[in-house]
Protein backbone atom coordinates (compact mmCIF):
# COMPACT_ATOMS: atom_id res chain seq x y z
CA UNK A 1 0.00 0.00 0.00
CA UNK A 2 1.16 3.50 -0.64
CA UNK A 3 3.13 5.59 1.83
CA UNK A 4 0.36 8.16 2.04
CA UNK A 5 -2.15 5.80 3.59
CA UNK A 6 0.38 4.72 6.17
CA UNK A 7 0.89 8.27 7.28
CA UNK A 8 -2.74 8.42 8.36
CA UNK A 9 -6.03 9.03 6.69
CA UNK A 10 -6.33 12.47 5.24
CA UNK A 11 -9.42 13.55 3.38
CA UNK A 12 -10.36 16.73 1.71
CA UNK A 13 -12.74 19.01 3.55
CA UNK A 14 -13.43 21.56 0.87
CA UNK A 15 -13.79 21.60 -2.88
CA UNK A 16 -10.63 22.40 -4.84
CA UNK A 17 -10.60 25.64 -6.87
CA UNK A 18 -10.63 23.78 -10.18
CA UNK A 19 -13.47 21.45 -9.21
CA UNK A 20 -16.85 22.16 -10.78
CA UNK A 21 -19.97 22.30 -8.61
CA UNK A 22 -21.91 19.04 -9.00
CA UNK A 23 -25.33 19.17 -10.65
CA UNK A 24 -28.26 19.24 -8.25
CA UNK A 25 -29.64 15.91 -9.40
CA UNK A 26 -26.38 14.12 -8.65
CA UNK A 27 -26.18 15.70 -5.20
CA UNK A 28 -29.76 14.64 -4.51
CA UNK A 29 -29.12 11.05 -5.60
CA UNK A 30 -26.03 10.86 -3.44
CA UNK A 31 -27.81 12.34 -0.44
CA UNK A 32 -30.73 9.95 -0.83
CA UNK A 33 -28.45 6.93 -1.02
CA UNK A 34 -26.48 7.90 2.08
CA UNK A 35 -29.64 8.86 4.00
CA UNK A 36 -31.17 5.48 3.17
CA UNK A 37 -28.03 3.69 4.34
CA UNK A 38 -28.17 5.54 7.67
CA UNK A 39 -31.91 4.97 8.09
CA UNK A 40 -31.61 1.27 7.30
CA UNK A 41 -29.44 0.92 10.39
CA UNK A 42 -31.08 3.38 12.77
CA UNK A 43 -34.74 2.66 12.08
CA UNK A 44 -34.79 -1.03 13.17
CA UNK A 45 -32.67 -0.13 16.20
CA UNK A 46 -35.19 2.54 17.15
CA UNK A 47 -38.23 0.36 16.59
CA UNK A 48 -36.82 -2.55 18.59
CA UNK A 49 -35.79 -0.30 21.48
CA UNK A 50 -39.15 1.46 21.80
CA UNK A 51 -41.01 -1.84 21.49
CA UNK A 52 -38.99 -3.23 24.39
CA UNK A 53 -40.21 -0.28 26.45
CA UNK A 54 -43.87 -0.47 25.40
CA UNK A 55 -46.77 -1.48 27.59
CA UNK A 56 -49.22 -4.26 26.82
CA UNK A 57 -51.98 -1.84 25.72
CA UNK A 58 -49.77 -0.12 23.18
CA UNK A 59 -48.53 -3.38 21.69
CA UNK A 60 -52.05 -4.77 21.49
CA UNK A 61 -53.36 -1.61 19.88
CA UNK A 62 -50.64 -1.40 17.24
CA UNK A 63 -50.58 -5.15 16.72
CA UNK A 64 -46.84 -5.70 17.06
CA UNK A 65 -43.72 -3.62 16.55
CA UNK A 66 -43.91 0.01 17.65
CA UNK A 67 -42.58 2.97 15.73
CA UNK A 68 -43.96 5.92 17.70
CA UNK A 69 -43.63 5.35 21.44
CA UNK A 70 -46.46 6.38 23.79
CA UNK A 71 -44.79 5.65 27.10
CA UNK A 72 -41.67 4.15 28.60
CA UNK A 73 -42.45 1.00 30.54
CA UNK A 74 -39.38 -0.77 31.90
CA UNK A 75 -41.29 -3.80 33.20
CA UNK A 76 -39.87 -6.10 30.49
CA UNK A 77 -36.37 -5.36 31.74
CA UNK A 78 -37.39 -5.81 35.37
CA UNK A 79 -38.87 -9.22 34.61
CA UNK A 80 -35.87 -10.25 32.55
CA UNK A 81 -33.29 -9.35 35.15
CA UNK A 82 -35.24 -10.59 38.16
CA UNK A 83 -33.73 -14.01 37.50
CA UNK A 84 -34.05 -16.91 35.12
CA UNK A 85 -32.37 -17.90 31.92
CA UNK A 86 -31.73 -14.52 30.34
CA UNK A 87 -30.03 -13.06 33.39
CA UNK A 88 -27.89 -16.18 33.71
CA UNK A 89 -26.98 -16.10 30.01
CA UNK A 90 -25.86 -12.49 30.33
CA UNK A 91 -23.63 -13.60 33.19
CA UNK A 92 -22.17 -16.44 31.11
CA UNK A 93 -21.51 -14.15 28.17
CA UNK A 94 -19.90 -11.52 30.38
CA UNK A 95 -17.65 -14.15 31.92
CA UNK A 96 -16.62 -15.56 28.55
CA UNK A 97 -16.05 -12.08 27.10
CA UNK A 98 -13.96 -10.78 29.99
CA UNK A 99 -11.86 -13.89 30.60
CA UNK A 100 -11.58 -14.66 26.89
CA UNK A 101 -10.46 -11.16 26.00
CA UNK A 102 -7.84 -11.10 28.73
CA UNK A 103 -6.55 -14.50 27.62
CA UNK A 104 -6.53 -13.73 23.89
CA UNK A 105 -5.02 -10.30 24.30
CA UNK A 106 -2.17 -11.64 26.45
CA UNK A 107 -1.35 -14.38 23.97
CA UNK A 108 -1.60 -12.04 21.00
CA UNK A 109 0.53 -9.24 22.43
CA UNK A 110 3.22 -11.61 23.68
CA UNK A 111 3.48 -13.49 20.40
CA UNK A 112 3.32 -10.30 18.36
CA UNK A 113 6.26 -8.91 20.29
CA UNK A 114 8.15 -12.20 20.11
CA UNK A 115 7.75 -12.17 16.33
CA UNK A 116 8.52 -8.50 15.82
CA UNK A 117 12.30 -8.78 15.53
CA UNK A 118 13.52 -9.86 12.08
CA UNK A 119 16.79 -11.71 12.47
CA UNK A 120 16.00 -13.15 15.87
CA UNK A 121 16.33 -16.87 16.52
CA UNK A 122 14.09 -18.92 14.20
CA UNK A 123 12.20 -15.77 13.24
CA UNK A 124 11.28 -16.78 9.70
CA UNK A 125 10.13 -20.37 10.39
CA UNK A 126 8.11 -19.16 13.37
CA UNK A 127 6.46 -16.46 11.31
CA UNK A 128 5.71 -19.02 8.63
CA UNK A 129 4.16 -21.29 11.27
CA UNK A 130 1.73 -18.54 12.22
CA UNK A 131 0.96 -17.28 8.72
CA UNK A 132 0.37 -20.77 7.32
CA UNK A 133 -2.87 -20.86 9.32
CA UNK A 134 -4.34 -18.49 6.73
CA UNK A 135 -3.84 -21.05 3.99
CA UNK A 136 -4.55 -24.41 5.57
CA UNK A 137 -7.24 -24.82 8.12
CA UNK A 138 -8.92 -27.72 9.85
CA UNK A 139 -12.46 -28.64 9.01
CA UNK A 140 -15.33 -28.73 11.41
CA UNK A 141 -15.17 -32.45 12.20
CA UNK A 142 -11.54 -32.76 13.37
CA UNK A 143 -11.83 -29.54 15.39
CA UNK A 144 -14.93 -30.86 17.07
CA UNK A 145 -13.21 -34.16 17.87
CA UNK A 146 -10.17 -32.40 19.34
CA UNK A 147 -12.19 -30.05 21.55
CA UNK A 148 -14.49 -32.78 22.82
CA UNK A 149 -11.52 -35.15 23.13
CA UNK A 150 -9.91 -32.67 25.50
CA UNK A 151 -12.97 -33.01 27.72
CA UNK A 152 -14.17 -29.47 27.05
CA UNK A 153 -17.74 -30.45 26.21
CA UNK A 154 -20.12 -28.40 28.37
CA UNK A 155 -17.25 -26.34 29.70
CA UNK A 156 -17.14 -22.60 29.15
CA UNK A 157 -13.47 -23.01 28.20
CA UNK A 158 -14.68 -24.58 24.96
CA UNK A 159 -15.95 -21.11 24.08
CA UNK A 160 -12.59 -19.51 24.83
CA UNK A 161 -9.62 -21.76 24.11
CA UNK A 162 -10.22 -22.93 20.49
CA UNK A 163 -10.42 -19.38 19.12
CA UNK A 164 -7.87 -18.05 21.58
CA UNK A 165 -5.53 -16.50 19.03
CA UNK A 166 -6.52 -14.62 15.92
CA UNK A 167 -3.48 -14.54 13.66
CA UNK A 168 -4.96 -11.57 11.86
CA UNK A 169 -4.99 -9.54 15.08
CA UNK A 170 -1.53 -10.80 15.84
CA UNK A 171 -0.23 -9.52 12.51
CA UNK A 172 -1.84 -6.14 13.15
CA UNK A 173 -0.19 -5.76 16.57
CA UNK A 174 3.10 -7.08 15.25
CA UNK A 175 3.27 -4.59 12.41
CA UNK A 176 2.54 -1.83 14.90
CA UNK A 177 5.39 -2.97 17.15
CA UNK A 178 7.66 -3.06 14.12
CA UNK A 179 6.74 0.50 13.19
CA UNK A 180 8.13 1.82 16.48
CA UNK A 181 11.56 3.37 15.76
CA UNK A 182 14.23 0.79 16.51
CA UNK A 183 16.38 3.43 18.26
CA UNK A 184 13.95 3.24 21.18
CA UNK A 185 14.44 -0.51 21.48
CA UNK A 186 18.21 -0.23 21.02
CA UNK A 187 18.71 2.45 23.66
CA UNK A 188 16.66 0.46 26.17
CA UNK A 189 18.72 -2.64 25.42
CA UNK A 190 21.98 -0.75 25.88
CA UNK A 191 20.68 0.39 29.26
CA UNK A 192 20.27 -3.26 30.15
CA UNK A 193 16.48 -3.63 29.90
CA UNK A 194 15.23 -7.18 29.39
CA UNK A 195 12.84 -8.03 26.57
CA UNK A 196 9.98 -8.14 29.08
CA UNK A 197 10.87 -4.71 30.33
CA UNK A 198 11.02 -3.37 26.77
CA UNK A 199 7.64 -4.90 25.93
CA UNK A 200 5.85 -3.55 29.00
CA UNK A 201 7.81 -0.32 29.33
CA UNK A 202 8.14 0.83 25.72
CA UNK A 203 6.28 -1.21 23.11
CA UNK A 204 2.93 -1.56 24.91
CA UNK A 205 2.54 2.05 26.12
CA UNK A 206 3.33 3.30 22.62
CA UNK A 207 0.75 1.03 21.02
CA UNK A 208 -2.13 1.39 23.47
CA UNK A 209 -4.52 2.45 20.69
CA UNK A 210 -3.97 -0.62 18.57
CA UNK A 211 -3.99 -2.93 21.58
CA UNK A 212 -7.28 -1.39 22.74
CA UNK A 213 -8.87 -1.88 19.34
CA UNK A 214 -7.69 -5.47 19.05
CA UNK A 215 -8.94 -6.12 22.59
CA UNK A 216 -12.34 -4.75 21.68
CA UNK A 217 -12.44 -6.92 18.57
CA UNK A 218 -11.79 -9.94 20.73
CA UNK A 219 -14.43 -8.82 23.24
CA UNK A 220 -17.05 -8.31 20.54
CA UNK A 221 -16.09 -11.65 19.01
CA UNK A 222 -16.58 -13.50 22.29
CA UNK A 223 -19.81 -11.69 23.08
CA UNK A 224 -21.19 -12.46 19.62
CA UNK A 225 -20.08 -16.06 19.38
CA UNK A 226 -22.95 -18.41 18.83
CA UNK A 227 -21.98 -21.54 16.94
CA UNK A 228 -19.34 -22.73 19.40
CA UNK A 229 -22.06 -22.97 22.00
CA UNK A 230 -24.22 -24.99 19.60
CA UNK A 231 -21.33 -27.41 19.16
CA UNK A 232 -20.00 -27.64 22.67
CA UNK A 233 -22.61 -26.55 25.22
CA UNK A 234 -25.60 -28.84 25.70
CA UNK A 235 -26.44 -27.74 29.22
CA UNK A 236 -28.74 -24.76 28.77
CA UNK A 237 -27.77 -23.30 32.13
CA UNK A 238 -24.44 -22.52 30.47
CA UNK A 239 -25.84 -21.00 27.30
CA UNK A 240 -24.45 -17.61 26.30
CA UNK A 241 -26.85 -14.81 25.47
CA UNK A 242 -26.70 -15.29 21.69
CA UNK A 243 -27.89 -18.84 22.10
CA UNK A 244 -30.78 -17.77 24.29
CA UNK A 245 -31.71 -15.04 21.83
CA UNK A 246 -31.72 -17.59 19.02
CA UNK A 247 -33.82 -20.14 20.83
CA UNK A 248 -36.22 -17.52 22.13
CA UNK A 249 -36.82 -15.34 19.10
CA UNK A 250 -35.83 -17.29 16.03
CA UNK A 251 -36.91 -20.71 17.26
CA UNK A 252 -39.72 -19.37 19.44
CA UNK A 253 -39.04 -21.24 22.67
CA UNK A 254 -39.90 -19.16 25.71
CA UNK A 255 -37.05 -18.86 28.17
CA UNK A 256 -37.52 -19.73 31.79
CA UNK A 257 -37.83 -16.42 33.56
CA UNK A 258 -38.02 -15.89 37.27
CA UNK A 259 -40.19 -18.35 39.21
CA UNK A 260 -42.94 -15.89 40.03
CA UNK A 261 -43.46 -15.02 36.41
CA UNK A 262 -43.62 -18.45 34.81
CA UNK A 263 -47.04 -19.95 34.41
CA UNK A 264 -48.86 -16.63 34.45
CA UNK A 265 -48.00 -15.27 31.03
CA UNK A 266 -51.52 -14.11 30.26
CA UNK A 267 -52.13 -11.93 33.28
CA UNK A 268 -52.21 -8.26 32.42
CA UNK A 269 -49.64 -7.47 35.07
CA UNK A 270 -47.07 -9.53 33.22
CA UNK A 271 -45.10 -7.60 30.57
CA UNK A 272 -46.00 -8.52 26.98
CA UNK A 273 -43.97 -11.28 25.33
CA UNK A 274 -42.96 -9.07 22.44
CA UNK A 275 -41.56 -6.44 24.81
CA UNK A 276 -39.54 -9.09 26.64
CA UNK A 277 -38.25 -10.45 23.35
CA UNK A 278 -37.17 -7.02 22.22
CA UNK A 279 -35.61 -6.37 25.63
CA UNK A 280 -33.45 -9.47 25.12
CA UNK A 281 -32.40 -8.06 21.74
CA UNK A 282 -31.50 -4.71 23.29
CA UNK A 283 -29.47 -6.40 26.02
CA UNK A 284 -27.63 -8.40 23.36
CA UNK A 285 -26.78 -5.28 21.36
CA UNK A 286 -25.94 -3.14 24.33
CA UNK A 287 -22.25 -4.06 24.86
CA UNK A 288 -21.53 -3.43 21.18
CA UNK A 289 -23.14 -0.01 21.43
CA UNK A 290 -21.25 0.71 24.63
CA UNK A 291 -17.76 0.04 23.28
CA UNK A 292 -18.49 1.36 19.83
CA UNK A 293 -17.66 5.07 20.23
CA UNK A 294 -14.34 4.03 21.67
CA UNK A 295 -13.58 1.74 18.75
CA UNK A 296 -14.50 4.46 16.32
CA UNK A 297 -12.22 6.97 17.95
CA UNK A 298 -9.29 4.59 17.96
CA UNK A 299 -9.44 2.53 14.87
CA UNK A 300 -8.53 5.18 12.38
CA UNK A 301 -5.19 5.62 14.06
CA UNK A 302 -4.65 2.06 15.27
CA UNK A 303 -6.42 -0.63 13.32
CA UNK A 304 -6.45 0.85 9.90
CA UNK A 305 -2.78 1.70 9.71
CA UNK A 306 -1.80 -1.79 10.76
CA UNK A 307 -4.39 -3.52 8.62
CA UNK A 308 -3.50 -1.67 5.47
CA UNK A 309 0.15 -2.39 5.94
CA UNK A 310 -0.69 -6.08 6.48
Amino acid at each position, binding site marked *: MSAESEAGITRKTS*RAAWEEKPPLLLELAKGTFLALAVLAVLFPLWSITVTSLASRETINRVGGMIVLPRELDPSAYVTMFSGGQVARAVGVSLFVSVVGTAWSLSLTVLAAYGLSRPGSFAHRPLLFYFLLTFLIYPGLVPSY*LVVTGLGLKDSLWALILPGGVSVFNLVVVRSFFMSIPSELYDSARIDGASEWRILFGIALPLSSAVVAVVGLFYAVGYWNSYFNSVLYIDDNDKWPIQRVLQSYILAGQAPKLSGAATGVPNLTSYPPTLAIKMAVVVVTIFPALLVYPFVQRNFSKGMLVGAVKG
Partner: protein
Amino acid sequence: MKPPRYLVSQLRRDWPLLVMVVPAALTLLVFHYVPTLGNVIAFQDYNPFEGDNPLEAFWNSEWVGFANFETLFEDSGFWDAVRNTLTITAFQLVFFFPLPIVLAILLSGVLSSKLRSFIQGVVYLPHFFSWVLVITFFTQMLGGAGLLAQELRRHGHEPWNLMSNPQAFIVLVTSETVWKDVGWGSIVFLAALSGIDPTLYEAAAADGAGRFRRLWHVTLPGLRPVIILLLILRLGDALSVGFEQYLLQREAVGRQAAEVLDTFVYFQAIVPQEWGVGAAAGLFKAVVGLILIVAANRLARVLGEQGVYAKS
Protein backbone atom coordinates in the same frame (compact mmCIF):
# COMPACT_ATOMS: atom_id res chain seq x y z
CA MET B 1 27.35 -32.56 15.67
CA LYS B 2 27.50 -29.22 17.40
CA PRO B 3 25.18 -26.46 16.20
CA PRO B 4 26.91 -23.48 14.64
CA ARG B 5 28.19 -20.97 17.10
CA TYR B 6 26.13 -18.01 15.92
CA LEU B 7 22.93 -19.98 16.49
CA VAL B 8 23.91 -20.64 20.07
CA SER B 9 24.62 -17.01 20.79
CA GLN B 10 21.43 -16.02 18.97
CA LEU B 11 19.46 -18.41 21.11
CA ARG B 12 21.09 -17.12 24.27
CA ARG B 13 20.10 -13.60 23.27
CA ASP B 14 16.58 -14.31 21.98
CA TRP B 15 15.17 -16.96 24.28
CA PRO B 16 12.79 -14.50 26.01
CA LEU B 17 11.22 -13.79 22.62
CA LEU B 18 10.72 -17.52 22.10
CA VAL B 19 9.10 -17.87 25.50
CA MET B 20 6.65 -15.13 24.54
CA VAL B 21 5.67 -16.92 21.35
CA VAL B 22 5.10 -20.29 23.03
CA PRO B 23 1.52 -19.87 24.41
CA ALA B 24 0.10 -18.65 21.11
CA ALA B 25 2.06 -21.25 19.17
CA LEU B 26 0.74 -24.00 21.43
CA THR B 27 -2.83 -22.77 21.02
CA LEU B 28 -2.46 -22.95 17.25
CA LEU B 29 -0.82 -26.36 17.52
CA VAL B 30 -3.63 -27.85 19.58
CA PHE B 31 -6.63 -26.15 17.98
CA HIS B 32 -5.40 -25.59 14.45
CA TYR B 33 -2.62 -27.90 13.34
CA VAL B 34 -3.62 -31.04 15.24
CA PRO B 35 -7.17 -30.88 13.79
CA THR B 36 -5.68 -30.14 10.37
CA LEU B 37 -3.67 -33.34 10.62
CA GLY B 38 -6.76 -35.00 12.05
CA ASN B 39 -8.31 -34.64 8.63
CA VAL B 40 -6.71 -37.99 7.80
CA ILE B 41 -9.77 -39.61 9.39
CA ALA B 42 -11.35 -38.78 6.03
CA PHE B 43 -9.58 -41.97 4.91
CA GLN B 44 -10.83 -43.98 7.87
CA ASP B 45 -13.97 -45.56 9.08
CA TYR B 46 -13.46 -43.49 12.21
CA ASN B 47 -15.22 -44.87 15.25
CA PRO B 48 -14.88 -42.92 18.51
CA PHE B 49 -15.76 -46.02 20.53
CA GLU B 50 -12.60 -47.82 19.42
CA GLY B 51 -10.70 -46.09 22.23
CA ASP B 52 -10.91 -43.98 25.35
CA ASN B 53 -9.90 -40.81 23.53
CA PRO B 54 -9.89 -39.61 19.91
CA LEU B 55 -6.21 -40.42 19.49
CA GLU B 56 -6.64 -44.02 20.57
CA ALA B 57 -9.81 -44.32 18.52
CA PHE B 58 -7.91 -42.96 15.55
CA TRP B 59 -5.19 -45.54 16.12
CA ASN B 60 -7.66 -48.41 16.22
CA SER B 61 -10.01 -47.31 13.45
CA GLU B 62 -9.95 -49.04 10.14
CA TRP B 63 -8.42 -47.43 7.03
CA VAL B 64 -10.83 -47.40 4.13
CA GLY B 65 -9.01 -45.46 1.41
CA PHE B 66 -11.31 -43.24 -0.58
CA ALA B 67 -14.56 -44.90 0.49
CA ASN B 68 -15.73 -41.81 2.39
CA PHE B 69 -15.14 -39.64 -0.64
CA GLU B 70 -17.11 -42.08 -2.78
CA THR B 71 -20.01 -41.91 -0.33
CA LEU B 72 -19.76 -38.14 -0.35
CA PHE B 73 -19.61 -37.72 -4.12
CA GLU B 74 -22.53 -40.08 -4.62
CA ASP B 75 -24.67 -38.01 -2.26
CA SER B 76 -26.79 -35.63 -4.32
CA GLY B 77 -27.25 -33.48 -1.20
CA PHE B 78 -23.54 -32.74 -1.27
CA TRP B 79 -23.65 -31.49 -4.84
CA ASP B 80 -26.77 -29.45 -4.06
CA ALA B 81 -24.83 -27.81 -1.23
CA VAL B 82 -21.84 -27.14 -3.50
CA ARG B 83 -24.12 -25.66 -6.14
CA ASN B 84 -25.92 -23.46 -3.60
CA THR B 85 -22.61 -22.25 -2.23
CA LEU B 86 -21.19 -21.34 -5.61
CA THR B 87 -24.44 -19.68 -6.73
CA ILE B 88 -24.49 -17.54 -3.61
CA THR B 89 -20.81 -16.64 -4.02
CA ALA B 90 -21.38 -15.59 -7.64
CA PHE B 91 -24.51 -13.64 -6.77
CA GLN B 92 -22.77 -11.78 -3.98
CA LEU B 93 -19.76 -11.06 -6.17
CA VAL B 94 -22.13 -9.12 -8.42
CA PHE B 95 -24.54 -7.62 -5.89
CA PHE B 96 -22.42 -7.19 -2.77
CA PHE B 97 -18.83 -6.75 -3.84
CA PRO B 98 -19.19 -3.41 -5.70
CA LEU B 99 -21.32 -1.74 -3.02
CA PRO B 100 -18.55 -0.91 -0.51
CA ILE B 101 -16.64 0.71 -3.39
CA VAL B 102 -19.67 2.84 -4.28
CA LEU B 103 -20.21 3.74 -0.64
CA ALA B 104 -16.56 4.71 -0.18
CA ILE B 105 -16.62 6.94 -3.25
CA LEU B 106 -19.85 8.61 -2.09
CA LEU B 107 -18.52 9.05 1.44
CA SER B 108 -15.27 10.59 0.26
CA GLY B 109 -17.36 13.15 -1.60
CA VAL B 110 -19.16 14.32 1.56
CA LEU B 111 -17.48 17.59 2.35
CA SER B 112 -18.61 18.21 5.94
CA SER B 113 -16.32 16.11 8.11
CA LYS B 114 -18.87 16.00 10.94
CA LEU B 115 -21.61 14.66 8.69
CA ARG B 116 -19.18 12.20 7.18
CA SER B 117 -18.04 10.74 10.47
CA PHE B 118 -21.66 10.51 11.62
CA ILE B 119 -22.60 8.49 8.52
CA GLN B 120 -19.51 6.32 8.91
CA GLY B 121 -20.28 5.73 12.57
CA VAL B 122 -23.77 4.54 11.71
CA VAL B 123 -22.97 2.33 8.73
CA TYR B 124 -20.03 0.59 10.44
CA LEU B 125 -22.19 -0.33 13.41
CA PRO B 126 -23.95 -3.50 12.15
CA HIS B 127 -20.57 -5.12 11.59
CA PHE B 128 -20.40 -5.47 15.38
CA PHE B 129 -23.72 -7.32 15.60
CA SER B 130 -23.78 -11.09 15.70
CA TRP B 131 -25.59 -13.02 12.99
CA VAL B 132 -28.25 -13.97 15.51
CA LEU B 133 -28.92 -10.27 15.99
CA VAL B 134 -28.86 -9.42 12.29
CA ILE B 135 -31.38 -12.13 11.51
CA THR B 136 -33.51 -11.06 14.46
CA PHE B 137 -33.52 -7.53 13.08
CA PHE B 138 -34.60 -8.76 9.66
CA THR B 139 -37.25 -11.02 11.18
CA GLN B 140 -38.73 -8.20 13.23
CA MET B 141 -38.79 -5.89 10.23
CA LEU B 142 -39.56 -8.13 7.25
CA GLY B 143 -40.70 -11.46 8.71
CA GLY B 144 -44.22 -12.84 8.96
CA ALA B 145 -44.83 -11.11 12.30
CA GLY B 146 -42.60 -8.18 11.50
CA LEU B 147 -43.26 -4.51 11.01
CA LEU B 148 -43.70 -4.64 7.24
CA ALA B 149 -46.24 -7.48 7.32
CA GLN B 150 -48.04 -5.76 10.16
CA GLU B 151 -48.38 -2.49 8.21
CA LEU B 152 -49.46 -4.31 5.04
CA ARG B 153 -52.11 -6.16 7.01
CA ARG B 154 -53.36 -2.96 8.57
CA HIS B 155 -53.84 -1.36 5.19
CA GLY B 156 -55.70 -4.37 3.92
CA HIS B 157 -52.94 -5.88 1.79
CA GLU B 158 -51.79 -9.44 1.69
CA PRO B 159 -48.76 -9.66 4.02
CA TRP B 160 -45.73 -11.43 2.63
CA ASN B 161 -43.01 -13.11 4.56
CA LEU B 162 -39.63 -12.54 3.02
CA MET B 163 -37.91 -14.59 5.70
CA SER B 164 -39.33 -17.99 4.71
CA ASN B 165 -39.45 -17.78 0.94
CA PRO B 166 -36.96 -20.20 -0.65
CA GLN B 167 -37.04 -18.41 -4.02
CA ALA B 168 -36.08 -15.09 -2.46
CA PHE B 169 -33.53 -16.62 -0.10
CA ILE B 170 -30.49 -15.58 -2.10
CA VAL B 171 -31.76 -11.99 -2.18
CA LEU B 172 -32.46 -12.15 1.55
CA VAL B 173 -29.01 -13.39 2.56
CA THR B 174 -27.34 -10.90 0.27
CA SER B 175 -29.41 -8.07 1.77
CA GLU B 176 -28.38 -9.22 5.23
CA THR B 177 -24.72 -9.31 4.20
CA VAL B 178 -25.02 -5.85 2.67
CA TRP B 179 -26.72 -4.50 5.79
CA LYS B 180 -24.10 -5.97 8.07
CA ASP B 181 -20.90 -5.37 6.16
CA VAL B 182 -21.21 -2.77 3.43
CA GLY B 183 -20.03 0.01 5.75
CA TRP B 184 -17.20 -2.02 7.20
CA GLY B 185 -16.12 -3.12 3.73
CA SER B 186 -15.85 0.50 2.62
CA ILE B 187 -13.07 1.26 5.11
CA VAL B 188 -10.32 -0.31 3.08
CA PHE B 189 -11.49 1.53 -0.06
CA LEU B 190 -11.61 4.82 1.83
CA ALA B 191 -8.01 4.27 2.86
CA ALA B 192 -7.06 3.52 -0.74
CA LEU B 193 -8.94 6.61 -1.94
CA SER B 194 -7.01 8.82 0.44
CA GLY B 195 -3.82 7.39 -1.02
CA ILE B 196 -4.59 8.69 -4.52
CA ASP B 197 -2.44 11.70 -5.35
CA PRO B 198 -4.81 14.73 -5.55
CA THR B 199 -2.71 16.38 -8.24
CA LEU B 200 -3.79 13.58 -10.58
CA TYR B 201 -7.35 14.88 -10.32
CA GLU B 202 -6.24 18.41 -10.90
CA ALA B 203 -4.19 17.47 -13.95
CA ALA B 204 -7.09 15.48 -15.36
CA ALA B 205 -9.46 18.39 -14.79
CA ALA B 206 -7.01 20.77 -16.45
CA ASP B 207 -7.02 18.49 -19.47
CA GLY B 208 -10.79 18.80 -19.62
CA ALA B 209 -11.90 15.59 -17.88
CA GLY B 210 -15.36 15.90 -16.28
CA ARG B 211 -16.30 14.21 -13.02
CA PHE B 212 -17.15 10.85 -14.55
CA ARG B 213 -14.02 10.87 -16.66
CA ARG B 214 -11.98 11.51 -13.50
CA LEU B 215 -13.84 8.72 -11.71
CA TRP B 216 -13.04 6.33 -14.53
CA HIS B 217 -9.46 7.35 -15.26
CA VAL B 218 -8.14 8.36 -11.85
CA THR B 219 -10.26 6.97 -9.01
CA LEU B 220 -10.88 3.45 -10.30
CA PRO B 221 -7.27 2.83 -11.41
CA GLY B 222 -6.22 4.08 -7.97
CA LEU B 223 -8.47 1.52 -6.33
CA ARG B 224 -7.47 -1.29 -8.65
CA PRO B 225 -4.80 -2.97 -6.47
CA VAL B 226 -7.18 -3.17 -3.51
CA ILE B 227 -10.06 -4.40 -5.64
CA ILE B 228 -7.90 -7.14 -7.15
CA LEU B 229 -6.56 -8.13 -3.74
CA LEU B 230 -10.04 -8.47 -2.29
CA LEU B 231 -11.28 -10.34 -5.36
CA ILE B 232 -8.48 -12.87 -4.98
CA LEU B 233 -9.29 -13.38 -1.32
CA ARG B 234 -12.99 -13.77 -2.13
CA LEU B 235 -12.32 -16.28 -4.90
CA GLY B 236 -10.07 -18.29 -2.64
CA ASP B 237 -12.97 -18.40 -0.23
CA ALA B 238 -15.56 -19.27 -2.88
CA LEU B 239 -16.65 -22.38 -0.96
CA SER B 240 -17.44 -20.47 2.23
CA VAL B 241 -20.27 -18.01 2.26
CA GLY B 242 -20.52 -17.72 6.00
CA PHE B 243 -21.94 -20.31 8.26
CA GLU B 244 -24.07 -19.04 11.12
CA GLN B 245 -26.17 -16.98 8.74
CA TYR B 246 -27.26 -20.13 6.91
CA LEU B 247 -27.46 -22.36 9.94
CA LEU B 248 -29.86 -19.90 11.56
CA GLN B 249 -32.18 -19.63 8.57
CA ARG B 250 -32.04 -23.16 7.23
CA GLU B 251 -35.14 -24.21 9.08
CA ALA B 252 -37.23 -21.23 7.96
CA VAL B 253 -36.59 -21.62 4.21
CA GLY B 254 -35.79 -25.32 4.01
CA ARG B 255 -32.57 -27.05 3.16
CA GLN B 256 -33.19 -27.04 -0.58
CA ALA B 257 -32.34 -23.35 -0.71
CA ALA B 258 -30.25 -22.79 2.40
CA GLU B 259 -27.93 -25.80 2.52
CA VAL B 260 -24.39 -24.61 1.88
CA LEU B 261 -21.23 -26.65 2.18
CA ASP B 262 -20.60 -25.75 5.81
CA THR B 263 -24.12 -26.49 6.98
CA PHE B 264 -24.01 -29.73 4.99
CA VAL B 265 -20.96 -30.83 6.98
CA TYR B 266 -22.66 -29.89 10.21
CA PHE B 267 -25.95 -31.64 9.53
CA GLN B 268 -24.52 -34.67 7.73
CA ALA B 269 -21.48 -35.27 9.95
CA ILE B 270 -21.61 -33.70 13.38
CA VAL B 271 -25.29 -34.26 14.06
CA PRO B 272 -25.48 -37.92 12.92
CA GLN B 273 -21.83 -38.48 13.97
CA GLU B 274 -20.68 -39.56 10.52
CA TRP B 275 -17.12 -38.48 11.22
CA GLY B 276 -15.33 -39.98 8.22
CA VAL B 277 -17.67 -38.54 5.60
CA GLY B 278 -17.74 -35.18 7.34
CA ALA B 279 -13.97 -35.00 7.45
CA ALA B 280 -13.91 -35.91 3.76
CA ALA B 281 -16.23 -33.01 2.97
CA GLY B 282 -14.11 -30.66 5.10
CA LEU B 283 -10.91 -31.83 3.44
CA PHE B 284 -12.47 -31.43 0.00
CA LYS B 285 -13.38 -27.86 0.86
CA ALA B 286 -9.96 -27.01 2.29
CA VAL B 287 -8.05 -28.46 -0.67
CA VAL B 288 -10.29 -26.79 -3.27
CA GLY B 289 -9.98 -23.51 -1.35
CA LEU B 290 -6.20 -23.77 -1.34
CA ILE B 291 -6.11 -24.50 -5.07
CA LEU B 292 -8.48 -21.62 -5.78
CA ILE B 293 -6.50 -19.04 -3.85
CA VAL B 294 -3.17 -20.10 -5.32
CA ALA B 295 -4.71 -20.08 -8.81
CA ALA B 296 -6.33 -16.67 -8.34
CA ASN B 297 -3.07 -15.30 -7.05
CA ARG B 298 -1.17 -16.72 -10.01
CA LEU B 299 -3.74 -15.24 -12.36
CA ALA B 300 -3.40 -11.83 -10.77
CA ARG B 301 0.35 -11.93 -11.22
CA VAL B 302 0.01 -12.98 -14.85
CA LEU B 303 -2.24 -9.96 -15.35
CA GLY B 304 0.49 -7.77 -13.90
CA GLU B 305 -0.99 -7.20 -10.45
CA GLN B 306 0.75 -7.64 -7.15
CA GLY B 307 -1.05 -10.62 -5.70
CA VAL B 308 -1.56 -11.43 -2.06
CA TYR B 309 1.79 -12.86 -1.09
CA ALA B 310 3.97 -10.25 -2.71
CA LYS B 311 7.01 -9.51 -0.58
CA SER B 312 6.90 -5.98 0.72
